[in-house]
């Protein structure tokens, strides 16, 4: 049974010409971790605030456990939220921060005490309970903010870019922490982020938003491997997918697309049969960096690989591997090379194209061409 259903959510701000949310439909199962991801201004924060009841919606309905809560006050929705700025009450101690919501709801003192301690234990902040938020580090404040949400044991948790104020190292640590917490407590979480790595690593399912419209809803693997359209393909993954304009051509029994390097060297790449209908037409080839690398003996057996030498324009060593840029059909294309076999810029490298996971898009509709 779905815990939270968003049915055709629409929102137009007073005086605005465009809709901020243009009919969002998402079902979220109990215990599911859903991330909402998209560029700034895509409406993800508006959607989040609408679920919490901090903003009213202009159309559609929000249903929790079968009950329409669209018009309820935030306090009656039984939803907790963790804010980007943490929004800890600065004049209250950590203990009072966590207890505030329980106190207002009239929980007896001893139960509050128990609950605060349980949450503090869970998040390892017991030692901080009597400190004021200003005396805590960013990571500690983050934990307290989560503690405040956990203490109420709400039906649904909303996380609004909770890690974006932390430094890089702490962000990764907290990400793992949140994931562990979710696996342990099996809570229903809607998590907003603009960081697609965060979205990928945390989510059971990802909802990609752009301009108030849902672009794709699926598991991280689905979204990464089979993006619905050019936007999702370009947005998810870092470094992002490269797009090359190519023409599908018949070559013997199979289909190929031709690419040309900066030095004029050409290479025919095998493409899957489902592009039969596109023979003679232009398509956009989407290829991720990890699908262009140094030749791999094991892959050579496959029909769907091709090799040639290309001039490397730029190299960016990342540590475990080297990101190299080559030019194909006049666009920059990124490849992921083995750090053990360094290549310098300006040199030629033998590269293997693994075509099994590349995707193709209709250049007009920008939609992925389905098998």
């Amino acid at each position, binding site marked *: 049974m779905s815990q939270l259903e968003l049915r055709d959510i629409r929102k137009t701000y*007073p005086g605005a010409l465009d809709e901020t949310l243009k009919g969002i439909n998402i079902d979220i199962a109990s215990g599911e971790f859903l991330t909402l991801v998209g560029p700034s201004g895509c409406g993800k924060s508006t959607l989040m*605030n609408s679920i*919490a009841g*901090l903003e009213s919606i202009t159309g559609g309905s929000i249903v929790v456990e079968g009950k329409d809560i669209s018009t309820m*006050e*935030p*306090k009656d929705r039984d*939803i*907790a*939220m963790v*804010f*980007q*700025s*943490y*929004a800890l*009450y*600065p*004049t*209250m101690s950590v203990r009072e921060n966590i207890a*505030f*919501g329980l106190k*207002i*709801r009239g929980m007896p003192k001893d139960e509050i005490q128990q609950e605060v301690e349980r949450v503090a234990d869970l998040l390892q902040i017991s030692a901080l309970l009597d400190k004021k938020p200003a005396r805590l580090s960013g990571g500690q404040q983050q934990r307290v903010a989560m503690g*405040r949400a956990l203490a*109420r044991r709400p039906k649904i948790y909303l996380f609004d870019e909770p890690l974006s104020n932390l430094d890089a190292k702490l962000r990764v640590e907290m990400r793992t922490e949140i994931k562990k917490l979710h696996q342990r407590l099996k809570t229903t979480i809607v998590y907003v982020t603009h960081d697609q790595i965060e979205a990928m690593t945390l989510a059971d399912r990802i909802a990609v938003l752009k301009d108030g419209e849902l672009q794709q809803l699926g598991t991280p693997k689905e979204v990464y491997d089979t993006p619905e359209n050019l936007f999702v393909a370009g947005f998810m993954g870092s470094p992002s997918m490269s797009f090359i304009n190519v023409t599908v051509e018949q070559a013997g029994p199979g289909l190929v697309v031709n690419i040309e390097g900066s030095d004029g060297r050409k290479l025919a790449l095998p493409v899957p049969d489902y592009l039969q209908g596109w023979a003679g037409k232009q398509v956009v080839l989407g290829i991720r960096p990890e699908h262009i690398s140094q030749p791999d003996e094991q892959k050579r057996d496959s029909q769907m690989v091709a090799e040639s030498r290309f001039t490397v324009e730029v190299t960016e060593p990342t540590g475990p591997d080297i990101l190299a840029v080559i030019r194909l059909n006049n666009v920059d294309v990124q490849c992921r090379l083995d750090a053990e076999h360094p290549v310098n810029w300006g040199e030629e490298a033998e590269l293997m194209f693994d075509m099994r996971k590349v995707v193709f898009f209709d250049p007009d509709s920008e939609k992925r061409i389905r098998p």
Partner: protein
Amino acid sequence: MTDMVRTGFRPSRIAIYGVLLLACLVYLIPLIVMLITSFKTPMDIRSGNLLAMPTDWTTIGWTKAWSEACTGVQCEGVKGYFWNSFKMTVPAVMISTLLGAFNGYVLSKWKFKGSDLLFGMLLFGCFVPFQVVLLPMAATLGKLGMANTTAGLVLVHVIYGVAFTTLFFRNYYVAIPDALVKAARLDGAGFFTIFFRILLPMSTPIFMVSLIWQFTQIWNDFLFGVVFASGDSQPITVALNNLVNTSTGVKEYNVDMAAAMIAALPTLVVYIVAGKYFIRGLTAGSVKG
């Protein structure tokens, strides 16, 4: 902006200190003159000069100003008016600050359709020359039976002070993240709970600013006092002006100066004790207003 000038005894540095100290003197001299003169005898005043120390230190000017000097027809000193000013200032400061706090809270955290219009109205209200409201206000106070009463003056000061206090609180609360209010709403807190439990405990500095600003403004006001009050209900500023302009008998400058000191002391004390907030009020009221 520090480390602009290397320290050391360069001529330019001596010149800077010279100018600054000279300015100190210029600003201080009137206060010194006022104090010296207030402790002189009338004889002393005639024989000495402005900056000459009294030959006989005497408090006769002060006692006379406090309880004997003539402010028009009456000759009971300024003490009654001094207390009038307190009776008027304290409630007016309290009420206008409280109203301002609530208004600022609503105008920053609970915006509604038309709240920006109200804010614009208040902002503009800070600049209106009070001359355009004097006559209708006098008529209204008369109708309400509040003419020449302290209550009437309190009302007037509340009306024309609330624009400033609202501005103070609104600008202060705007800087507090909205997420705090959102979090509290999700925690189940309502309008007043959020104000009293979350925002109010954070508001001490701006309360100080508002209280001090309003105290200084209202205590120092002369226009409303002279227009809306007469006789027994007049504030100290009006009484001082009457005392100085009373032309009966010989002019006693020591009494004038003592009376001026009495009128100045409350705000001076506030300024010395809480000058930090006073300056903040001045800059907030002007830069952001």
